[in-house]
């Protein structure tokens, strides 16, 4: 199987293009279904083991990873089969409505080991805008799950993705990147500690109900703030998050607070001392204009705004208002980058991920080789069985005729025929100049044969020029 990657990410394309190419969760199944229809469902088991040999249509596998920073197609397909990188580009252009030229100009493509390595790096957050983030693991898992549901994942991608998810987690743990990770939210809390002496008389507000809001709110709750509000556009998700965090207005609630409707956002912003934002909104939720009006009602109390969303939830201009301290995820990460030995840990993680990717590709190749050997063996066994049946027939005739002395000759003939039949197919390739319009790499084949059968390179004059074995069909009687 060959692994291919076609991707557009924050390195190759500006945010507008990335946004126009993003495929959200609702559209994802349709795109995957289109892939399955065109390049075949990968859900047929052991596609590689199918003795179809050369071109096989209908065993392409695909996982589509689309986040705010990247849209990437991971594809596995049999060698010499569709789709190629070009077809993938066209496919993506059709699906997203972007022009083919644009995609060609702003995408990267990788094959085999580099493609797998890229997947591992992306999963490990090493290719992320905020290097070392772990959020992307969840995104990769979701993309993989979606592809599984759409039936576009076969054994090859199964192996690669499972290995990526497993190995990356391990690399994160062992390299210490996982410990750094908690720091993104803990860094926010630490920054807050430079602003506020105690949290017990403060009000914390979390906008959005996503993972990052949850993680950071949890960390804030460890400091036991006076009140904690969750404000979300969809009330159900907000209530659910408030529930998970143990917020409530009752006495027995773990933390005082709860969910507030989106309409009360202004009131919450007035009440709060620490505001975390992590919504999926495309436009800033807290604009400078909006917040400026609230400053008076806030009585100029210092406020700590932590913008964890990409794209931003808080206009950068808000940060220049008096007594407003605005930090976005980049600031937190930049501060994290100051942490000594962070680079070291990331480098260690990078090395581990590279090794893991190599192991994964190696294992895939090994497995492919195993399949190849099985195919070869069964083919040879088929030839052997044919010959054996023929020889057995002849032997029976000799036996019946009582010509036992000819049996030895029959055995010689059997051996020769068998060897000739086995060698016929590969050796006939050496003889041809062209095959399907392509130049036959005779020298390469010769070298491979020499290497595979451990033969010395002997000049033709010293040895008898042995003619190529005749076609078994011609030899057949």
């Amino acid at each position: 199987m060959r692994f291919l990657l076609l991707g557009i990410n924050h390195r190759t394309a500006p945010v507008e293009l990335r946004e126009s190419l993003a495929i959200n969760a609702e559209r994802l199944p349709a795109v995957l279904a289109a892939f399955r229809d065109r390049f075949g469902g990968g859900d047929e088991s052991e596609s590689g083991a199918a003795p179809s040999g050369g071109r096989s249509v209908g065993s392409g596998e695909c996982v589509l990873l689309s986040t705010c920073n990247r849209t990437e197609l991971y594809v596995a397909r049999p060698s010499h089969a569709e789709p190629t990188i070009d077809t993938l580009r066209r496919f993506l252009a059709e699906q997203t409505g972007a022009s083919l030229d644009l995609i060609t100009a702003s995408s990267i493509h990788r094959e085999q080991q580099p493609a797998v390595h890229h997947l591992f790096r992306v999963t490990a957050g090493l290719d992320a805008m905020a290097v070392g983030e772990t959020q992307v693991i969840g995104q990769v898992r979701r993309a993989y799950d979606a592809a599984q549901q759409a039936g576009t994942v076969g054994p090859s991608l199964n192996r690669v993705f499972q290995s990526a998810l497993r190995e990356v987690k391990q690399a994160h743990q062992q390299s210490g990147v996982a410990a750094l990770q908690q720091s993104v939210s803990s860094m926010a809390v630490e920054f807050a500690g430079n602003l506020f002496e105690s949290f017990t008389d403060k009000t914390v507000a979390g906008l959005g109900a996503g993972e990052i809001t949850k993680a950071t709110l949890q960390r804030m709750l460890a400091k036991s703030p006076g009140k904690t509000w969750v404000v979300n556009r969809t009330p159900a998700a907000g209530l659910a998050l408030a529930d998970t965090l143990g917020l409530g207005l009752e006495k027995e609630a773990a933390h005082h607070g709860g969910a507030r409707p989106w309409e009360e956002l202004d009131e919450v912003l007035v009440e709060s001392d620490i505001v975390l934002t992590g919504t999926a909104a495309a436009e800033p939720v807290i604009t400078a204009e909006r917040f400026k009006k609230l400053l008076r009602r806030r009585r100029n109390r210092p406020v700590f705004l932590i913008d964890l969303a990409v794209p931003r939830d808080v206009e950068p201009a808000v940060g220049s208002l008096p007594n407003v301290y605005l930090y976005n995820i980049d600031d937190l990460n930049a501060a994290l980058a100051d942490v000594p030995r962070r680079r070291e840990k990331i480098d260690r993680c990078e090395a581990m991920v590279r090794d893991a990717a190599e192991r994964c590709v190696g294992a895939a190749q090994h497995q492919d080789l195993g399949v190849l050997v099985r195919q070869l063996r069964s083919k040879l066994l088929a030839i052997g069985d044919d010959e054996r049946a023929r020889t057995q027939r002849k032997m029976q005739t000799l036996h019946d005729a009582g010509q036992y002395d000819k049996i030895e000759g029959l055995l010689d003939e059997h051996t020769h025929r068998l060897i000739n039949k086995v060698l016929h197919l590969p050796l006939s390739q050496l003889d041809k100049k062209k095959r399907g319009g392509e130049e036959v790499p005779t020298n390469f084949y010769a070298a491979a044969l020499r290497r595979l059968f451990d033969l010395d390179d002997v000049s033709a004059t010293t040895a008898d020029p042995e003619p190529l074995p005749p076609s078994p069909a011609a030899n057949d009687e």
Partner: protein
Amino acid sequence: MIQTLTNLSLVLLTLLSAAASVLAVARLRQTMALAMQASHASESDDNDLLRRPNKRLLNTLVALIGLGAAGLLMYRWLAVGDGWNPLSAHVDGLLLIASLLAGVGLYIQSRPRLGGLAVFLLPLLTLILAWAICASAWTYRPFHLDSLSPVWTAVHLAGVYLGTLGCALAAAAGVMYLVVQGQLKAKRNPRGLLRLASLESLERLITRSATLGFALLTVGLISGVVILQYEGDLLGPGWWYSPKVLAAFSAWLVYAVVMNVRYATAFRGRRAAWLAIGGFVLLLVVYGIVTSGPATTTDRLEVGFEDSRDLAGAAAAANSSLNAEVFLINHPAVAGPVESRLRHFSLDVLRGGPA
């Protein structure tokens, strides 16, 4: 003799204080660097720890300065002062502030939530001690304590000096507030900032010391007004709009705002810090006016010397007085018109003599 000793001790104290400031800055830098390193490394370098200035050394130094200043104040009280009032000149007031500031510095060192403030307090202490050198060696002038209201004068001086201490504290916290605030706005790594006080603690310190300063300044201002009521001609007619009174009054107003900044929300945050610093500068201006302005005296004193009409005689008379020697040599007014010289002499002689 007393002045020479005072000067020498003050120079010593100032040098000590400067050394302490340098140590505090070095220590903070090292602490920050350590915080950055130790954040993830359990195996912190022993060498670095050794190189970090010792906290005990710093504390000892500050305690030494405080005790030295207090001791010098006591000595001067015994040697120069008369009776129960320890403050007989501007130097004494500055020494009082310095010794108390050193005490406050020691207290702050023990408060983890006010970490790093020593870095801003110790230079201030150095400044005050250096000022004390000037006040002792060049512009020495005893207070006019033989007024009709010694009690009021004492209350006035105590209120003003202790109030200034509060304001100095507020100003130092204000400077630190601006620094921390700048760091926060610049989004510096909080691991490095960790040992510095939070903005909230600093704001609280500003409002509290401003409250203290305001209360004591109120006492100082009221007693000052009372004294002026007794001796209305001290600052001449229209004293209430003289620069000294106006500056003092505006400083007082500024601290009235700063202490209520949680309610006067328009001045919250950075503005409060600037106000605290500005108020302190105004107070310094008041001190400057008092020190450099013409001596406050009365006709009665002047007349006392016009009788003698003899500068040499006056000098001789002054020599018999305790502080006249220094005064004669150092005071710039000696080069001025005779009349003003006479005034100063008369003041001095009268103070020193039984009269």
